[in-house]
């Protein structure tokens, strides 16, 4: 391969651009070099390509740069000496005028940015309220037996959210129970009251950690899956297809997921409570607390009110996870990147909702004396 080169030669009031060597992608002089080399008194440029070897579109790119520069300096270019393919490439690239986007709105500084942020937040809040309203309406329809919700879908999502999550919920709950027990043991051992580890673990799991940890697992596992499923359906126009069939996407797609999660969450919460308490028992046994003592202490520490308060939380958490996941999925954009964003949004939103709701529940329980 010979090196790509060029030379300007003055011939009777016009200059000839002699191209020689192989002009191949990555091996050619930059277009700017051509522009800079044009003689100052040049009024017209003619291409001479007798010594031109192999060439590809990189030559066309350099010549187009030269043509733009020449146009700005009112110099004409004659390409008739170029090979036919090269002429075709030059003509094709200039045959359709460039699309001009409307001028971008000038940045209005801090106030405009603030307005945009407030506006976006308001829009997001409005969408959430509308979605909540739609879900309530759909739920009402379902309770009256009029919703277009398939019971097979509900069963399918219960199976997905429940039995298939048992292993991960068990692992996390066991560890959380053990962590609570270790946390308490440090203090209680100093007082010689190790047996109260059972109270700490039982109350901690039943009132708080059982519901919260299950909810966090389900937000990451099931909430994200809901967002990705509905987002992909949106990308594939499946949701539009439902709409034109006169089927409400909320009734057909959201409600089965919502009902499945609301049904399964309290069951998983009870399961998590029991596993967590068992985890506490493992740690307690290493602190000279017998299993019998631990069970008796646990039974005395927890009453039905504690259990109910945890279950109410878990039902509400199920509602929040399903809402966050499904809303993110239905509001998803139409590309693969948007599906990923929807799944991320679902998880982040659900966890924020969970923590805020948990704090609100604790304040409420405190006020009513539960």
């Amino acid at each position: 391969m010979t090196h790509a080169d060029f030379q300007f030669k003055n011939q009777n009031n016009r200059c000839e651009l002699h191209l020689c060597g192989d002009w191949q992608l990555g091996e050619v002089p930059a277009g700017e070099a051509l522009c800079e080399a044009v003689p100052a008194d040049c009024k017209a440029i003619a291409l001479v390509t007798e010594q031109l070897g192999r060439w590809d579109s990189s030559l066309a790119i350099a010549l187009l740069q030269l043509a733009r520069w020449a146009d700005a300096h009112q110099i004409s270019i004659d390409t008739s000496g170029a090979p036919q393919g090269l002429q075709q490439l030059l003509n094709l690239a200039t045959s359709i005028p460039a699309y001009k986007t409307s001028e971008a709105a000038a940045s209005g500084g801090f106030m405009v940015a603030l307005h945009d942020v407030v506006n976006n937040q308001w829009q997001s809040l409005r969408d959430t309220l509308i979605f909540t309203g739609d879900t309530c309406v759909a739920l009402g329809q379902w309770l009256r037996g009029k919703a277009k919700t398939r019971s097979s879908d509900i069963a399918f999502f219960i199976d997905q959210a429940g039995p298939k999550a048992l292993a991960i919920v068990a692992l996390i709950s066991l560890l959380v129970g053990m962590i609570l027990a270790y946390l308490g043991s440090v203090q209680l051992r100093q007082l010689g009251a190790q047996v109260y580890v059972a109270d700490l673990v039982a109350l901690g799991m039943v009132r708080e950690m059982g519901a919260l940890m299950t909810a966090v697992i389900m937000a990451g596992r099931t909430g994200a899956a809901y967002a990705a499923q509905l987002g992909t359906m949106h990308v594939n126009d499946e949701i539009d297809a439902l709409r034109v069939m006169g089927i409400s996407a909320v009734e057909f797609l959201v409600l089965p997921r919502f009902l499945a999660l609301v049904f399964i969450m309290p069951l998983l919460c009870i399961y998590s409570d029991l596993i967590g308490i068992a985890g506490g028992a493992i740690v307690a046994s290493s602190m000279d607390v017998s299993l019998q003592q631990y069970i008796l202490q646990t039974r005395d520490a927890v009453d039905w009110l504690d259990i109910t308060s945890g279950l109410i939380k878990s039902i509400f958490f199920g509602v929040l996870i399903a809402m966050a996941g499904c809303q993110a999925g239905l509001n998803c954009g139409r590309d693969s990147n948007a599906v990923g964003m929807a799944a991320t949004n679902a998880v982040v939103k659900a966890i924020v909702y969970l923590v805020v709701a948990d704090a609100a529940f604790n304040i409420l329980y405190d006020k009513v004396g539960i």
Partner: protein
Amino acid sequence: MMAGEPFIAVRDLTIGYGNRTVQKNLTFDIHRKDIFFIIGGSGCGKTTLLKSMIGLLEPQKGEVLYSGLSERDSVNFYRSDEKIQAQLLNNWGITFQTGALFSSMTLAENVALPLQLYTDLSEKQMAEAVAYKLALVGLAGFEDFYPSEISGGMHKRAGLARAIALDPQVLFFDEPSAGLDPISSLRLDQLIVQVCQALGSTVIIVSHELPSILSIGTNSVFLDAQTNTMLDTGDPKKLLEHSQEDKVRQFLNRTESRVEESL
């Protein structure tokens, strides 16, 4: 490459998925600068054949041999080392049915991707090359648009711009006109011919769009779903008149009569 040797030689090729054979005993030649159509009814295995030609589906039997694209002649992609495979891939441009643009990237980023991977152009040179390739397919000014912001026809043209980013010697198209109106389809055909003539590329197109086949095709192979093999190969305009296979003539004629009726 020796004189007279086919550019791409398909020899006794049998293709399929798992134990299922889709097409068998395919033997045909593709020559340099051919506009070659893989023709056949829906479900006959046109895309499967394309996949096996571009290294996505290993044949069950037989081989596809490429000459003049790498340092060795008569190269079988599946039996080559990584170096030869990279040389072949560098010389192939592939446009998928939907354009297969990366949705998280702008059109400019989509076209720039092969340049970033296979060349060491400066940022400015790359931007010039990308702008040029988009201008070539009539998308100048759309550099900063995302795939979700452009129409289906523009998707296909942007896919073509990405496929020709490295000036490939062979361009593969999977159903380029699918889903386009007749005018857009005609324009895309013209664009493919113009771009490929200018770049000196060989074109292989999977299609059952007979107006396209008969207007721009210079060579073809006809696949049959019932016998699971090829029925004929050659210039589609000649096959229309002189194919020994009734099925091929009927397939190509049907469109002709339909076009005449619609006129």
